């Protein structure tokens, strides 16, 4: 037998648990322990009897007619929490599984005041269809008019048919012709399959269908005021759809507006109102919502993103640029970059304006987008970025300039060769190599011939000589050969690195005339030089 004091203690633990479960996620150790302890307490109580039944009054809870809880604080009272939704009794049955108890605790731990819950505690319990938790609900709280049933019954009975009419029906019944009966066609397995298919094909989110219907409603609108009302609803529908990750709805809207506008399906003044919807689709609100959805981990297939990029307006570019700096996930940023790489083509200068953003990573991403667009009109912006204070931005800009291959930027790239960061210099060297202009060649040679060249790291020297190797002319070959032959008693390690880099470059050039010279170093005691010479010889052998 369970005593009231035990129930009092259990309820106190339940109230504490309710708070803990609300605060912590369900994988948190505190959540798990709280739930385990409470469940075990309940199971222990149920060891000695088949069920525990609690009855509720406004601020009180009773067990076996004894008061086991009282709290008249409207915010805190557990009794009121149940009572206000009509719960008058709850029973926990012996054998209650932990999952069912956890579901119950999750329900009562919800913050009904703050969270946007459209359900009350009874609905949530009802939906769970508990088997070991039974409850009694007083539905009179739902009644709009308590005397309605009585009134309606009287009213209907008052209009009852007269005896004469019934007897007339009886008399006439024998004279009338027998009506053909309806044949009930039995259901077949095919029918069942069809219904299952229809249920399975029902989309969870019907906002795109709603939008299709709202567009139909535009055609049915009676006058400008109604038309405006529907466009407002369309805006709300789009917001809802995007917040729920439904991009198809957004695409459909933009396409529909385009079709309506192109075909002038409405008078001009209504088209102007509709333009407002288009503007809204490309607005910060929508793009920010889209960003949030992406950060929640929703992924879209390439075709959908491509389609979206094509239907959106260039006015959305600054908003996409903006959220690029706010998104947390790499995959979200990647999606925005994919969009900007397509959408940006509609107004490259507007896109490039994003390079003045104070966040270095935004600028770097925009440069990356510009690289994808491959449009030389952005050279002006890229050249400026070569002087960006952040080296990560600089490097991206250098790569972009190199890929666009515009010789007008060579002078600026040359400036990068003086950068104090090696990785920036290496990138600049690579870019100059790609551009392959006489000016590039000239600057590279000058750089090599500079007395400080020998002091550079092997990697930088190798990249430099590799860039130079693209030019394949006599002077380049001679320079490389000279380097390979060079001897010195000082700074031998650095010199050996230079020679190794030269050997590497000659190999890449497949310069046959250097074969004998390279051969001399294939057994060199310095590993770096030996390996680079061997690699070069191997490349020459492939010729």
């Amino acid at each position, binding site marked *: 037998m369970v005593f009231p004091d035990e129930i009092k203690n259990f309820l106190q633990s339940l109230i504490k648990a309710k708070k803990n479960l609300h605060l912590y996620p369900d994988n948190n150790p505190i959540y798990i322990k709280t739930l385990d302890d409470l469940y075990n307490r309940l199971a222990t109580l149920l060891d000695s009897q088949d069920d525990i039944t609690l009855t509720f009054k406004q601020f009180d809870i009773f067990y076996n007619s004894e008061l086991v809880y009282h709290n008249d604080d409207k915010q805190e009272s557990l009794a009121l929490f149940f009572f206000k939704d009509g719960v008058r009794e709850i029973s926990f049955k012996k054998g209650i599984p932990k999952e069912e108890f956890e579901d119950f605790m999750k329900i009562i731990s919800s913050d009904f005041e703050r969270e946007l819950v*459209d359900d009350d505690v009874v609905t949530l319990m009802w939906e769970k269809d508990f088997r070991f938790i039974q409850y009694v609900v007083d539905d009179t709280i739902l009644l709009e*008019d308590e005397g309605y049933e009585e009134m309606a019954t009287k009213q*209907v009975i008052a209009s009852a048919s007269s005896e004469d009419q019934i007897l007339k029906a009886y*008399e006439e019944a024998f004279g009338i012709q027998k009506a053909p009966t309806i044949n009930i066609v039995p259901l077949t397995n095919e029918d*069942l399959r069809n219904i299952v298919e229809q249920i399975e094909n029902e989309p969870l989110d019907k906002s795109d269908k709603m939008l299709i*219907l709202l567009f*139909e*409603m535009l055609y049915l609108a*009676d006058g400008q005021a109604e038309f405006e009302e529907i466009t407002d609803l369309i805006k709300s529908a789009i917001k809802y759809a995007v917040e729920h990750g439904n991009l198809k709805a957004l695409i459909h809207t933009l396409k529909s507006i385009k079709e309506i506008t192109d075909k002038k399906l409405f008078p001009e003044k209504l088209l102007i109102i509709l333009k407002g919807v288009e503007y809204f689709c490309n607005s910060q609100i929508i793009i920010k919502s889209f960003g949030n959805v992406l950060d929640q981990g929703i992924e879209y297939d390439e075709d959908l993103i491509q389609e979206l990029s094509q239907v959106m307006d260039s006015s959305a570019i600054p908003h996409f640029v903006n959220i690029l700096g706010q998104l947390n996930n790499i995959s979200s940023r990647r999606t925005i970059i994919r969009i900007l790489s397509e959408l940006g083509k509609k107004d490259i200068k507007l896109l490039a304006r994003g390079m003045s953003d104070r966040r270095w990573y935004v600028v770097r991403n925009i440069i990356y987008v510009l690289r994808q667009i491959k449009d030389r009109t952005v050279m002006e912006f890229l050249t400026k970025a070569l002087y960006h204070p952040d080296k990560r931005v600089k490097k991206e800009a250098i790569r972009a300039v190199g890929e666009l291959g515009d010789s007008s930027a060579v002078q600026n790239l040359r400036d990068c060769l003086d950068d104090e960061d090696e990785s920036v210099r290496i990138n600049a060297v690579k870019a100059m190599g790609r551009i392959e202009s006489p000016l590039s060649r000239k600057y590279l040679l000058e750089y090599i011939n500079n007395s400080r060249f020998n002091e550079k790291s092997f990697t930088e020297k190798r990249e430099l000589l590799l860039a130079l190797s693209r030019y394949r002319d006599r002077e380049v070959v001679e320079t490389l050969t000279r380097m390979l032959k060079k001897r010195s008693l000082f700074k031998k390690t650095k010199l050996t690195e230079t020679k190794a880099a030269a050997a590497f470059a000659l190999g890449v050039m497949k310069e046959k005339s250097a074969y004998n010279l390279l051969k001399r170093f294939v057994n060199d005691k310095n590993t770096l030089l030996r390996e680079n010479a061997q690699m070069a010889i191997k490349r020459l052998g492939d010729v």
Partner: protein
Amino acid sequence: MSESKGIELKGKDIVNQLAVMIRTGHFHTLENVAVENAIKRFLEIVNPLFHEEDYIRIDLIGEFFYINDTRIRYPIELLLNFDFLIREFRRRELGTISFVSPLKKEEVKEFLRCFLKAAFSNTPFETLEASLERIDSIQVEKLKQIKEDETIDKRKLVKKTYFNAVSFTRGVINKIRSGEKVSIKKAKRVIESVVDTLLAEESLLIGMTAIKDYDEYTYHHSVNVSILSIAIGQKIGLHRRALTELGLVALFHDIGKMEIPVEVLNKPTAFTEQEWKLVRRHPFWGARTILKLRGFDKTSIQSAIVAFEHHLHYDLSGYPKIRSRIPLDFYTKIVSIADQYDAMTSSRVYSRVPLPPDRALSVMMDRAGSQIDPILFKFFINMVGVYPVGSLVLLDSKEMGLVYECNPLLADRPRVMIIVDERGQRLKKGNVVDLTERDTEGKYLRSIVKTLDPNKYKINLAEYLL
């Protein structure tokens, strides 16, 4: 009584395999390999459960099977087998089969033999019970007849649920009219109560939809459509949550009618073309009202879609006229059927002559495939029967009555309330007779020979139901 996960998981398999076994037994001799396999499979499902259960008791209560007190839910794919088994139980007046110890193949085979044979007896249950005496592991109990006072109590509860829903709808519509906020939480609670009542007392609640209150038509109609939609949803296997959603959207399907001027809506004469134009705008207004009132969420979107589409028709030939060739929403297809049926069988201001239920079904049958989904209509007609509740019928016993409760398994044999006896005497609250009752020779005691139009004689079932 113990309750276990095993029963919950295996319950549907037990009932399904029992049906398969009996079905196979109908077509083959019991020595046939198909029957042997069916028995083998049945044993494989049932016997392992004895590790955790002392016995396995299958009860037929109302339209549902319970195993060890757990109601067995089934996926729609098994619907036909479940229905078949209910029929087989009823044919033998069988209410319960208990397996009290693990079964042997020969015992099940013998049970099957007795079960099949009992169907041909005039006293099928007694024959079955007697023939099973030699099998210790299997016991049977007779199907419990519902006592009249139990029925009355149930009716009271059903009536309360029904009128609560009507009263709530009336309140909601008045609130919307006066621009007040409507509580969706309350609406859900009302519909949940309708769903619960329907799951427990389907026939009685569907019977309540036959009440056609001319003065309160709008509210009754909304609730009736909601009940009939939930009933179709239940028949096709929607889960409780979906049934609530369906009931809720059905309840608000006609909300746009609020915008039709009262003088038009209550006009006693026929509508002019201009007035019809206004009436035909109610789907547009309905969708708009719902979205404006509730904003956008899953339920409001679903409700707005149904409110907009419910007169559009399966082939989109209805109203409002739309440009896109989009298929109707699944819920719309259900609500349209419920709406058409209830509207046709109700007396409305602008259509004063309602059709008798059987005539309405006949009209709808002609519309299946064009105005309404033909397959869902098949479910509907199987649900309400050939003679839906409210049908006025003449019996071969020369009695006249009103169909009081349909029989989902024998569509042409409902329960009928006799209102005029065989001598032509009017009865105030007559007996309710079951048309499945037979005499000692196995012949039905009463059968329907004719249907009449209750509206022609202003006969309202409500006076008998309430």
